[in-house]
């Protein structure tokens, strides 16, 4: 059965049982290619999709989903969602979204990428591995060398007249290398996102990984204490990602974010502005409408240190008499509607990395943070993370350091920002796409020897 026909049939049959309902479909193709020692190690191709129904009855929203997209699933979907809705206790204005006006025209589908051939992808991936192995004799093995490509169609149809469709595609390549010198082993990683194979160079990705691994050889710990800290752009982006739930209007309303009641107040140093830009060109999280069909728009979340808004869905916004910020997000058709940033980044400042090092004089330049899913508490803002980087002496890199932790509080840290670099860069895509320039912090606690 054709997908649009199937969706319409669900809406017609469902409308007899629900007050209103919505069908949300994600359908796509993906390729995952891994190379090991010049050979295809793993090649995975996929064509999958799933359909979610959410329907409202007496103010209560019930969900169900299926990956079996055929007529036999229709009644099960409707009955399960209806049954699920009956148990909902929280009747707080949940509704099926009607429609926005003036959706931005966005094209996030890149023909060039969708036309790449197996030979081109394989050649690219092999090249990445070859370059990494030949750049430095101390690179002894490759942990992973991978190329991924996806395309996805999204459908949001509902009984209030919403009929939205879009499609996106993207590519992602990464390599992780192992360097050895004597008994010392260090790893390094390089990655790029792209919307066409000619945009990226396998050599550049390999170089990034090799340089990281080689530069960390000989790294040791450092004396514990409070240090001036410079955080590399992508590492600060990772930290921002890990703490992004503090900006969720839903978390604030549930008492799970300390930014509750802080809109309009100063939450950071005057030099920091944070932007949520769903229209960013080649942004991994660009979209004209969110996952409940509400139009998206660009906004500053933090403007010169002042919190201007939290991120909202239609429902959480209405509770505060606001309009949705277009940040409704579903990680898949299996999950309920939640909130996520889109392309979310700290705006560029004016300083070069070199100038910030000079200004810092003595301190630590952190280039990699680990344990971001466990070593921090988004509710309290506390973090204590394993990290690596370099000791800075008289404004210059002195030696690599690892096996240390950096600890502090994110809310405090936002206020302790001294300088913001001009080297905005984005980290690996997650539910959102996070970016930052390198940032100089007054001080953080380091534990080591």
């Amino acid at each position, binding site marked *: 059965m054709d997908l649009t026909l199937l969706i319409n049939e669900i809406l017609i049959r469902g409308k007899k049982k629900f007050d209103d309902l919505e069908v949300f479909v994600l359908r796509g193709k993906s390729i995952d290619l891994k190379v090991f020692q010049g050979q295809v190690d793993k090649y995975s191709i996929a064509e999958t999709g799933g359909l979610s129904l959410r329907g409202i009855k007496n103010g209560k929203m019930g969900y169900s989903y299926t*990956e079996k997209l055929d007529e036999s699933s229709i009644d099960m979907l409707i009955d399960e969602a209806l049954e699920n809705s009956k148990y*909902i206790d929280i009747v707080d204005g949940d509704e099926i979204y009607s429609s926005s006006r003036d959706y931005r025209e966005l094209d996030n589908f890149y023909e060039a990428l969708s036309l790449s051939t197996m030979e081109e992808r394989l050649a690219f991936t092999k090249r990445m591995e070859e370059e990494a192995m030949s750049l430095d004799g101390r690179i002894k093995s490759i942990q992973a060398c991978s190329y991924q490509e996806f395309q996805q169609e999204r459908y949001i149809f509902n009984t209030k007249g919403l009929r939205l469709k879009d499609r996106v595609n993207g590519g992602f390549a990464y390599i992780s290398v192992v360097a050895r010198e004597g008994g010392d082993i260090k790893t390094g990683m390089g990655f790029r996102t792209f919307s066409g194979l000619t945009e990226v160079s396998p050599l550049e990705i390999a170089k990034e990984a090799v340089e990281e691994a080689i530069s960390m050889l000989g790294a040791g710990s450092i004396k*514990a204490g409070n240090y001036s800290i410079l955080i590399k752009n992508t590492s600060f982006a990772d930290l921002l990602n890990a703490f992004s739930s503090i900006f969720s209007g839903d978390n604030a309303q549930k008492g799970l974010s300390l930014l509750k009641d802080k809109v309009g107040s100063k939450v950071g140093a005057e030099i920091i502005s944070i932007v949520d830009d769903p229209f960013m060109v080649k942004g991994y999280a660009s979209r004209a409408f969110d996952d409940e069909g509400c139009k998206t728009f660009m906004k500053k979340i933090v403007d010169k240190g002042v919190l201007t808004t939290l991120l909202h869905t239609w429902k959480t916004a209405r509770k505060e008499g606001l309009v949705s910020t277009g940040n409704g997000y579903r990680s898949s058709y299996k999950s*309920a509607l939640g909130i996520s940033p889109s392309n979310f980044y700290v705006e560029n400042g004016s300083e070069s990395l070199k100038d910030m090092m000079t200004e810092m004089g003595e301190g630590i330049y952190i280039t990699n943070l680990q*344990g971001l899913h466990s*070593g921090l508490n988004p509710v309290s803002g506390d973090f204590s993370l394993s990290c690596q980087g370099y000791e800075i002496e008289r404004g210059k890199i002195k030696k690599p350091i690892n096996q240390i932790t950096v600890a502090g509080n994110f809310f405090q840290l936002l206020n302790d920002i001294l300088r913001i670099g001009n080297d905005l860069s984005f980290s690996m895509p997650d539910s959102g796409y996070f970016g930052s320039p390198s940032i100089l912090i007054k001080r953080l606690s380091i534990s080591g020897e």
Partner: protein
Amino acid sequence: MLKRSVIENVLYAALSMGGDFAEIFIEDKRTGSIRLVGGLIENNLSGRDYGVGIRILDKFNCIYAYTSDSSEENLIKVAKEAGAALDSFKTDLVLNLVRRDLVENSPIIKGLSKTPKSAKVDILKRAYNAAKDYNQVVSQVTTSYLEEEQHILIANSDGLLAEDNRIRTRIAVSSVASFNGEMQQGHYAPGASMGFEFYDNVKVEDIGIEASRIAKTMVHADYCPSGNMQVIIDNEFGGVLFHEACGHGLEAAFVSKGTSAFAGKMGQVVASPLVTAIDDGTIKNGWGTTNIDDEGSLTQRNVLIENGILKSYLIDKLNGRRMGMDSTGSSRRQSYRFSPTSRMNNTFIDGGKSKLEDIIANTESGLYAKKLGGGSVNPATGDFNFAVMEGYIVENGRIIKPVRGATLIGNGTKVLELIDMVGDNLNLGQGMCGSSSGSIPANVGQPTIRVKSITVGGRKGDE
């Protein structure tokens, strides 16, 4: 699930362009979850995951394709497309599928789909009430219930045909304590490969109380000091350290490529003689227990390290080929969307002789890490990091005060050698383990152990 003739035709199609082994994995999974915020049901989701994965091996190369369209026509198309990616010669294949008999490691008494939703809501509300009423500092409690019934069928060109049902349930309570403008969380989430009888065996109120107890203790705790110190890691979920820091390094996926710190160390001393570590996928109703692994081999009990000596890796079919070794029944995957690889089931350090009281009494100055949170490890270097969710300072053999914000960092192989006391109180804790073949349920475990020295990261670096 699929007709035998369809399965056979797909396997023939998969090998029609080359390859020496083909496998089909069919999955039909029902999932359900209920989430309460502040004692009220906010979400109630259910659904059906359905799809087919086709894997073709050609010596050390692996082609994997998956689809949620299981019509014979589509599956044969997908199988042929996958095969076309191989640059090899066609082998002659005569299929004779023989059904594998299974031993039931996780007998089920009360089916989950047959249990009324109201009973599931009831246990969540009981857990919520106990957590909320624990103390006035508890400001928010989230409770969730999870269940899944996974039905799988695996067939391969070696003639294997196996079918299995995996039923799991879990309850999670997360409490937030607020005091003087600060917030701290406590979390507890037991589960099992069991039907609804699981909730007859555990007292759900205790689960809520445990989450709130941790949150309350931590909101009143001071920041942890940092430095190298003696660290006591408690039993149950404390085993996550061994899981991350050593378990992953024993997986054939890393060993076969020489990217594990344990590669080439079979038969050698890799840990203190006090350490015996086991991965047992057959523990009755265990969270990480299965009857067969995700390529159809019977799940086993594997002794990984015995009295400090490395005895076994965790091996799947493909990496076993690379290493010239047999499968240990350790091949797992989250779903049909993942090609399977070597993973852990229920992994633990075996019980020793020391009493918990004696371990504390014998610790001059250090950290007692009662609850660990998540962590991560770099398998190539063995470097790990872990969050301590509940910690205490120990001085002169006595617990002095709770501390928060501690992180443990170190190196897996080094820590194994530095274990100097092993308790007699082995217990298991439940977790979700994420790696290249997806997120899978796994038990971690250990008795209370003491490590001579670990770097503890805290906030009081300047003391």
